[in-house]
């Protein structure tokens, strides 16, 4: 398996109103994601994980460093990289199926192709019955499933998920984790998931990157070698969850 995405020595500096006039959000971050790999990035708030994902998405430019997707340098957003946001980013004036078809429409797919692909992706996220619903009529969890179907419809090389379940309540969130695990089992799409839930990261990932704060950088990379589907009841699951928690707590302790 070759490396699909590589980021080398990414730094990001923002202007700020503090004494220095700037703040360092990311410092010297390097990572590589293999084809069909599910990688999660966990870390405390403010560690720059969302900034990192925005840079990979092409929405922000790094202050230093280089990114490549399949050998091509990343320069701006593109259909190569599907993105699911934490906040509701559905087009609320379009129906569910029109939302999922949006990327296909702007890319010039025929009506017949659009219909077939939309059908398949709505089935994948279990929303076939809601084709003609408007986003405003759906629950938060269903809306995020539409967002996932929309991002998958254009068959991106990699799917970037920025705390997609962060705005959901705890129970819906757990349900969505399992749904996403199921979707990944069926598609084996390359995924980077940013989350602050360690449990979510363990349920879903092949590998977990632990980020730390000030400066924001990737401190640890842990392979998750548990069989799928994974259950938090599994003692090995618990053990891994505890050790990742400790890693993060240690770093926070240093800082205090």
């Amino acid at each position: 398996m070759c490396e699909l995405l590589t980021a080398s020595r990414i730094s990001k500096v923002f202007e700020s109103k503090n004494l220095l006039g700037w703040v360092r959000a990311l410092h010297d971050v390097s990572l590589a994601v293999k084809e069909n790999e599910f990688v999660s990035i966990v870390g405390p708030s403010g560690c720059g994980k969302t900034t990192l994902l925005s840079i990979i998405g092409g929405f922000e430019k790094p202050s230093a460093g280089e990114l490549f997707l399949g050998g091509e340098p990343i320069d701006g957003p593109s259909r190569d990289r599907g993105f699911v946001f934490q906040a509701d980013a559905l087009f609320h004036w379009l129906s569910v199926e029109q939302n999922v078809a949006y990327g296909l429409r702007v890319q010039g797919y025929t009506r017949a192709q659009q219909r077939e692909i939309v059908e398949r992706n709505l089935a994948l996220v279990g929303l076939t019955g809601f084709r003609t619903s408007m986003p405003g009529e759906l629950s938060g969890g269903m809306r995020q499933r539409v967002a996932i179907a929309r991002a998958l419809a254009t068959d991106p090389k990699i799917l970037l998920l920025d705390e997609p379940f962060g705005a959901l309540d705890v129970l819906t969130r757990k349900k969505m984790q399992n749904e996403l695990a199921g979707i990944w089992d069926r598609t084996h799409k390359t995924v980077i998931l940013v989350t602050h839930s360690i449990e979510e990261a363990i349920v879903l990932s092949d590998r977990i990157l632990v980020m730390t704060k000030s400066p924001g950088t990737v401190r640890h990379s842990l392979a998750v070698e548990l069989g799928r589907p994974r259950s938090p009841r599994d003692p090995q699951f618990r053990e891994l969850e505890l050790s990742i928690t400790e890693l993060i707590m240690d770093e926070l302790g240093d800082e205090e």
Partner: protein
Amino acid sequence: MTHQPISRDARYRRRIARLRAMSTPVKVIKGTLSILIVALVWWAVTDAMRLFTPLVLPSPITVAKAAWQLLFDPELRLFSGGVYNGNLIGHALVSTGRVILGFSVGVIVAVPLGVLLARSRRLEPYVDPVLQILRPIPPIAWTPLAILWFGIGLEAIVFLIFLGAFWPMLLNTISGIREVPPILGRAAASLGASRRQTLFTVVLPAAIPFLFTGLRLSFGSAWITIVAAELIAASEGLGYLIMNARRILAAPDIIVGMLMIGLLGLTFDRLFRALERRLYAP
């Protein structure tokens, strides 16, 4: 937190439903009643108690008679003091036509300019100061200049209406486009939409509520401007009718003209609201 969070949209929809549930007949009865009360008080201070001379404030009955004649029999209202064109419907049509013309030009200029200004951070510092200085000048203050440039006639009036319609539309377009959440544009870009496609398929549709508010305010402003413009620079139209009626001391005709302006303004406002609901069901 075990319950499903109630979304903002759901709450909004429920409020709409409650408003609709307040049954239409009840609203109509209440509305009619309030108009009747105003008319009754009006009648009481004029015909009944004679607190005002009819020359200053004619009774509602006189006004109703005048309205009837102006609508259906305008020749009967030829006063001795010279030529007086009292054709109410004709004047109303002329005014409406002018408003639609000036309003259309205003919207056609304001929307693309607003989009451009909202989307281009580089252009804004150059254009913004000019706009800030011109914006507080009421369209009416342009009247002398408009007459100087275009003479008394259609062009001057359309120019003034254009100014009246232009500002609300421009400002609402700019804020509408700026209020579109950036993640919608990011989502479109990551789905392969070009900048142009993003503008037409995401940014503008997302800004529709603001654009409609702009249209409504803009039409209201145009409607206010036309009457003022016609008071000065016209030889027909509702503003002219009112001004002419004052010249011959026909107070009932002034009031009829004013009520006509109010009713037409209300009608257009309702039309825009209905159109907005049709296009953008919440």
